[in-house]
């Protein structure tokens, strides 16, 4: 609304506003957070779209993500190279999907990607076991973990292939809407 900032051009801010769930102020705030992570790497002037990516290790150190058991998987699923190196656009994308304004369908798509550890587009028993282990921080015995995963697959698998496709996952999610309120990171 009239304040002179030189980080982005007006067109860039308009594009961010159109394509993400953030307002101009929030985009500028996100940029300052991104810059804080590596002040010597991240330029202050984004008008000519510099090609700057921050490594996984720096991003998962953010206080919002530090205590999250899935922080690595989250960052990896939003990075283009799959290794967790995020450019600023991917950074904004990540927090846009995780914000409270993103609809459930969009969050479900990314939740599936995050839980899919071996990136084969299915949640097999190993994926679920890893998920449960991270959630419970190894407090359950391996037999209990296996039991819960078996029960989950039994319950949710509709096409009988012993692994959950995206359709099965979405079906499960739609009947327990609270499951996705865990997919909310406020920044």
């Amino acid at each position, binding site marked *: 609304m009239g304040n002179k900032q030189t980080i982005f051009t007006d067109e860039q801010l308009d594009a961010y506003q159109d394509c993400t769930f953030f307002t101009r102020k929030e985009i500028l705030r996100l940029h300052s957070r991104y810059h804080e992570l590596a002040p010597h790497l991240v330029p202050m002037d984004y008008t000519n779209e510099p090609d700057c990516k921050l490594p996984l290790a720096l991003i998962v150190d953010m206080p919002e993500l530090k205590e999250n058991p899935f922080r690595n998987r989250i960052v990896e699923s939003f990075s283009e190279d799959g290794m967790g190196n995020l450019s600023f656009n991917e950074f904004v994308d990540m927090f846009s999907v995780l914000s409270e304004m993103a609809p459930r369908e969009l969050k479900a798509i990314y939740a599936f990607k995050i839980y899919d550890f071996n990136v084969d587009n299915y949640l097999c028993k190993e994926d679920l076991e890893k998920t449960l282990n991270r959630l419970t921080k190894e407090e359950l015995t391996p037999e209990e973990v296996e039991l819960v995963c078996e029960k*989950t697959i039994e319950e949710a698998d509709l096409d009988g292939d012993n692994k959950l496709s995206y359709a099965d996952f979405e079906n499960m999610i739609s009947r327990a809407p609270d499951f996705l309120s865990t997919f909310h990171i406020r920044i």
Partner: protein
Amino acid sequence: MACACLVVYCVTEEQDLVKELVALSITEQIKKIRELPRSFEEKKHISVKSAKQTLELWHSTMKEIGGKFGSSVLNYFVLLKWLLMFNIFSFLINFGFITIPLLIYDHSPNTPANMTFRGLELLTGAGYFNYTIMYYGSYSNETVDGLVNYDMKLAYFFTISVYMVFCGIVLIFSMASSFKKNYAMADPSSNSAWQLLHSWDFSITNENAVNHHLKSNILRCVISVIFVILLLLQESLAEKAHIEQKTLPEKLQQYGIYLGSWLLSTGLAVACGVSIFYLCKYEDKTLLVPFVVSLMNMVVPLLFSLFNKFEHYSSQSKQIYALLFRNVLLRISILGVLCYHWMNVVPLKFTCWEPMVGQALYRLVIVDFIFLMLGSFFGEFLSNVIGTKIQPRLGVPEFDVARNILEIIYAQTLAWIGIYFSPLLPVIQILKFFILFFIKKVSLTQNCQPPRRSGRAAQMKTIIIFLLFFPFFMGALSIVAYTSWSLTPSEGCGPFRGLNRTFGVIEGWIDDVDKNFPGSKWAVWIYDNVIKSELFFFLITLIILVIIYIFWQLAEGRKELIILLREQIVNVDVKPDLKKKRKAGYEIYYPLLLEHSKRIENGILHLSLFKKNIGRV
């Protein structure tokens, strides 16, 4: 080769997506782009492409406003643009079918001597303007013999009727589609009481909080397998939260306040109407009546908002509806009194009375425009100055969407009433709305902040269209219908001079058709026995009522079917023994979960209890 195929596939998929986006409205476009599960660069590319292909008027401005201020503010500008389109269409058909033939026939306005154009006519609409093509009075009732026998009075009648019917149809269709989208398809379980349960987010950095959070996640993991229990839980929690205990004296006091403010508001609206009635005798000479009308329309809604602050309605939407109803009542009563005056008093006072009504409406439109601009100045600019510099506690004002929307609906109603009496009134309306768009846009961006509460914009849109249609459009339509059906057109001027009533033009035409086209006896027969007979309309009404009843029952039946199907999805029989297991699970888990949920709320969760129960299902 495969890569090339993949690239081609991606490109065509993107083209399909862009085509789909271009067909949507602006609000839907923005929403759809944000929800695409693609990376930012791809979304930017798609949005730029779709923006280039959309050829709407003011498309980029509206996108900017929608992005910065949200979709409820955008609704105002979309409505403004929509009404502007109505007026442009009206101007085109009126100018094309009514004014141009008149100009060809006789292009010199028959003004009396010493009546020259003074600037004042722009404001009062009288004087020199009275004798121009602006008003009904200058239109001729002759038939132009050119390439075709162009009967000007028939053209006048049909053009006005076609326009009103067109507006009615467009409004009905958009109302129906709006209802369908926002009420019929709404899923009642989606806006549920999940807000009661905490939104567990990951913005936790405290160690203890993290452990508690993780432990609750274990429970949720298993809960996702036994979903119905949660739904039951949600309902019982929601019921408990919403029971309000009120004692009898408090209830009486509440009802007393409601009654008092409703009486006051209705009384105010009626008082305004009565005062306009008494002021009407000064209507044709001065600008007093339009000035008082606009002043009332500006001040009395503020009083209504004041009353609204003292009442406490049980829900936000009831409060808004009450305020809206009162404002509508005020405007309808003022317009009603004015129309009564125009229909009953003015025809007896003047020989050439239709242009007088046209002038009165012209003055109302102009003064309304001036007041709208002033209102923008006082309402938004001054509030901003006061809010930021003088009294910082008040803060930057919000854009009052409901009030602004009602103002433009009222302005359009004046144009709809006036179109019969002044065929070129849409010109003034087009200029008015065009200038208003830019004034409001500048005022919005400079003075206002985005609304804090993102109101339910989609339902608001339905209500806006409903409001537009029912009191205002139907009112305008009935005034025009009453004028053409019952009132005697003036003797000395206008296209219907000499006839007993305007509708007589149709009767004359039918007679002509009978004389000139001997083969069309059937058309004449239809007119005489079907359209003119009351029995026909009675039967049609009865048939339509029966059809409505059948469709209504059909809709009810479908609603029940949806509920049944939902229940069936819940009980879907994938593996027969699983159902038994589930049932056992419910009986064991439901009471446990009630316990657990209370403990989650209090932050204590015993993992051991959970472990004990894992084996039971």
